[in-house]
């Protein structure tokens, strides 16, 4: 990311404040997604409740970033990289908020799973949980550092996550047929897998925003990339 000073120091301060806000939002969201895996594996209700509670802070930060971004756009009318960075930051905030929502959904489904004995198949979600968390981590690094190479690799990695998700759904569906009394629990696991797959999609969006911020390329529907 470019760190050049502007003639107006108040503009620099406003940009730095916006960067601080998105970094704080990223930290909480990453924690929530990571905690959702731990809460599910350890059957930890308190951790589930914390993830649900933390979503309020993420929602507040999303609105704060929108306000700060619009304020910068109207007061300073930034151009070139500055404009692209502010615009992309507002979009990243939307994706982080959605990922936090997915973590909340996972926590709620995990709480439902606590009401019955543990399913051994719960462990089958760990690899895709790790893939989604890794995608999010790298998408945020790509955005912070405007690392195009890292950002461009996210789509291919998301396709691997999609493939793993599909295979998992097939296996869980087969288990549902064999073990009908536990059908609601298997359904909860299928939903959790779906939330993780969606979190991966949002991480890819963050990578696309990194590319736009860095070199003004819109790769969202570019089928030749990644």
């Amino acid at each position, binding site marked *: 990311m470019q760190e050049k000073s*502007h*003639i107006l120091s108040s503009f620099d301060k406003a940009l730095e404040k916006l960067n601080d806000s998105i970094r704080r939002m990223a930290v909480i969201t990453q924690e929530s997604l990571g905690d959702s895996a731990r809460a599910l594996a350890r059957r930890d209700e308190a951790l589930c409740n914390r993830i649900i509670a933390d979503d309020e802070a993420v929602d507040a930060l999303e609105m704060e970033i929108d306000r700060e971004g619009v304020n910068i756009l109207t007061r300073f009318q930034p151009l*070139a990289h500055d*404009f692209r960075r502010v615009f992309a930051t507002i979009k990243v905030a939307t994706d982080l908020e959605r990922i936090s929502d997915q973590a909340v959904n996972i926590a709620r489904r995990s709480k439902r799973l606590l009401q019955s004995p543990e399913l051994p198949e719960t462990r089958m979600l760990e690899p895709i949980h790790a893939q989604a968390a890794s995608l999010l981590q790298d998408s945020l690094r790509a955005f912070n550092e405007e690392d195009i190479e890292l950002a461009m690799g996210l789509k291919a990695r998301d396709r691997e996550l999609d493939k793993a998700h599909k295979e998992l759904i097939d296996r869980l569906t087969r288990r549902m047929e064999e073990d009908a009394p536990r059908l609601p629990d298997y359904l909860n696991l299928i939903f959790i897998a779906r939330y993780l797959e969606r979190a991966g999609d949002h991480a890819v969006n963050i990578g696309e925003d990194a590319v736009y911020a860095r070199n*003004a390329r819109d790769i969202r529907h570019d089928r030749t990339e990644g």
Partner: protein
Amino acid sequence: MNSGGFFSCLHFLSSPAPIVNVTHNIQQARRLADDTAYLLLGKLIERALTCDIFINPQRPETERDISGQMG
């Protein structure tokens, strides 16, 4: 004539013949021009569609100037 009238007049005149407006006023260039050329010390640095040059300038000199950066 107020600014609105002046700009309408320019718009009317630009239909049969292109108009070159030389300005230091970036806001005015953004509002008026279809194409923008950035000149520095008498040299043409770059020229592009106005929306492109202000969102994605190709030369660092242009980026520095329109972004209000120091140095």
